């Protein structure tokens, strides 16, 4: 009934990501598509505006590699470890070049995606009261309730990335996508973006999706490309498939401290490899086995057949 959008990461990035685009690789600790970040570095995109609630190691790699000139975010750091050295060098010392920033709170970022997804000109939120954040971000503006002059909110504008990359456990080849575990803002960013690349651990038959339609988070109708990339979130995790590789997060703290060691890492692990499959092979099976969780099945429900 619907056409296949199956492609490779290489082709998806080549065809859909342009220099100067606003790109969002989302995923809140869960489902962060490092494989897409690496391919964007490999294809040496430039002047990107990177949007993400929580810029972490993947954006430190991309910004350290020089693909971006601006960052839109709400929290930056190496979760549970510390700082993003490459990002800080650029913000604090314009080293090697300056990085423009536009910052919100978490809820502000989520609501920007919500407004983008829902085609709303603004989204109201009860935040930023008596905070200095609006003083450094003029896009966050106060508004009074039309029902009560004493009731004030702030509003944020829609954020519609040119490209959103959403990682998920599974999708069919039309892009009907199912996610379990932490949802982050995967649904909102997908509906908000002009172009959507869905990256999954497994392509499944449409019938698997149709057996549990309430599990579908993103319909193929908004998806432009579907890429099957096992372990595509490493060192982040995919619920039920593999664990976060915390050793890598700790190691990155050391790697990113100097631009030289960061560049060496990029040469070996990104530019030195043709694609994510080679990255997976380079780590070796034993490594991936060590990250596999035990089983925790969801159980089944019955939708009932009404014929």
């Amino acid at each position, binding site marked *: 009934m619907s056409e296949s959008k199956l492609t490779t990461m290489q082709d998806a990035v080549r065809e859909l990501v342009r220099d100067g685009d606003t790109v969002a690789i989302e995923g809140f600790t869960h489902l962060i598509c490092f494989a897409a970040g690496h391919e964007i570095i490999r294809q040496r995109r430039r002047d990107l505006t990177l949007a993400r609630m929580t810029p972490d190691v993947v954006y430190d790699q991309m910004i350290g590699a020089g693909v971006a000139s601006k960052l839109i975010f709400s929290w930056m750091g190496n979760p549970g470890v510390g700082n993003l050295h490459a990002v800080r060098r650029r913000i604090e010392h314009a080293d090697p070049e300056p990085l423009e920033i536009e910052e919100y709170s978490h809820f502000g970022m989520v609501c920007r995606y919500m407004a983008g997804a829902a085609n709303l000109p603004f989204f109201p939120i009860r935040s930023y009261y008596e905070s200095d954040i609006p003083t450094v971000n003029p896009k966050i503006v106060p508004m009074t309730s039309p029902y009560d002059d004493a009731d004030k909110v702030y509003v944020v504008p829609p954020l519609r990335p040119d490209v959103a990359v959403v990682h998920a456990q599974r999708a069919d080849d039309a892009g009907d996508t199912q996610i379990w575990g932490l949802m982050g803002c995967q649904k909102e960013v997908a*509906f908000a973006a002009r172009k959507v690349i869905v990256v999954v651990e497994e392509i499944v038959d449409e019938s698997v999706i149709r057996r549990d339609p309430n599990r579908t988070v993103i319909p193929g*109708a908004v998806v432009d490309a579907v890429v099957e990339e096992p372990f595509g979130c490493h060192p982040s995790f995919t619920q039920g498939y593999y664990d976060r590789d915390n050793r890598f997060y700790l190691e990155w703290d050391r790697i990113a401290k100097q631009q030289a060691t960061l560049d060496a890492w990029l040469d070996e692990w990104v530019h030195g490899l043709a694609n994510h499959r080679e990255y997976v092979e380079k780590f070796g099976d034993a490594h991936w086995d060590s990250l596999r969780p035990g089983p925790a099945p969801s159980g089944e429900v019955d939708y009932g057949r*009404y014929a």
Partner: protein
Amino acid sequence: MSEAATGLGYSKSELMIAASARLLGGVSNCFVGVGLPNIVCNLAQRTVSPRLQLVYESGVFGARPERLPLSIGDPTLATGSTAVTSMFELFAFYLQAGLIDVAFLGGAQIDRHGNLNTTVIGDYEHPKVRLPGSGGACEIAIHARKVLVIMRQAQRSFVDRLDFRTSPGHSGDPAHDAARGWHGSGPTNVVTDLATYAFDDASGEMVLRTTHPGVTVDEVRANMGWKPVIADDLGETPPPSDEELRLIREELDPEGVYTS
């Protein structure tokens, strides 16, 4: 009206369904109603629009009903569909965001610009007949890229002045319509039991395009509350093909619930 009553080998409903389905060529995301629209969409999926996705305002995307749904919330719509979502998301992320290519509307009253009344006959405060209200119609009229109206035609339903405007149609001023910035801009076609209509780009007014076999222009005129603009190339509505009739009668409505 029964087949016998037309004496043409098909019923008026079957003609309306076939005529409507042909308007769905190349459409992908279709907002479906119950009754005739449901059969129209299923027919289009089997003929002019194999990629057509059935979307229901109840929150179902990519439905594959195994039986004729009794309402837009029939359980057969959820089972086996591609996605089931909350109504907020359906209206916000799908309809308001412009993902719906075509939708169906009807009403108790329509005027020459395709404005529709599904709210009240008579005065709002002292209604002669209280109708269901908007439901999703007001949003659908604004956001669906194409809106197809299927109605029985009569003096009391095709009116010069609506008692209440529930869903906006064309304003009559194309400059104004363009400036609206909506995804849609009023109905694109009207199919009745007597004729089919389109809307004039310049005036935004309903234009008689075809009369159904055996129906005269006078008959059409006699069943509407204004003097209709008639297309220069006024023609006859093509009757349903044998294949269309077979699909309707054998697959889509074997009990003839909506088509006899």
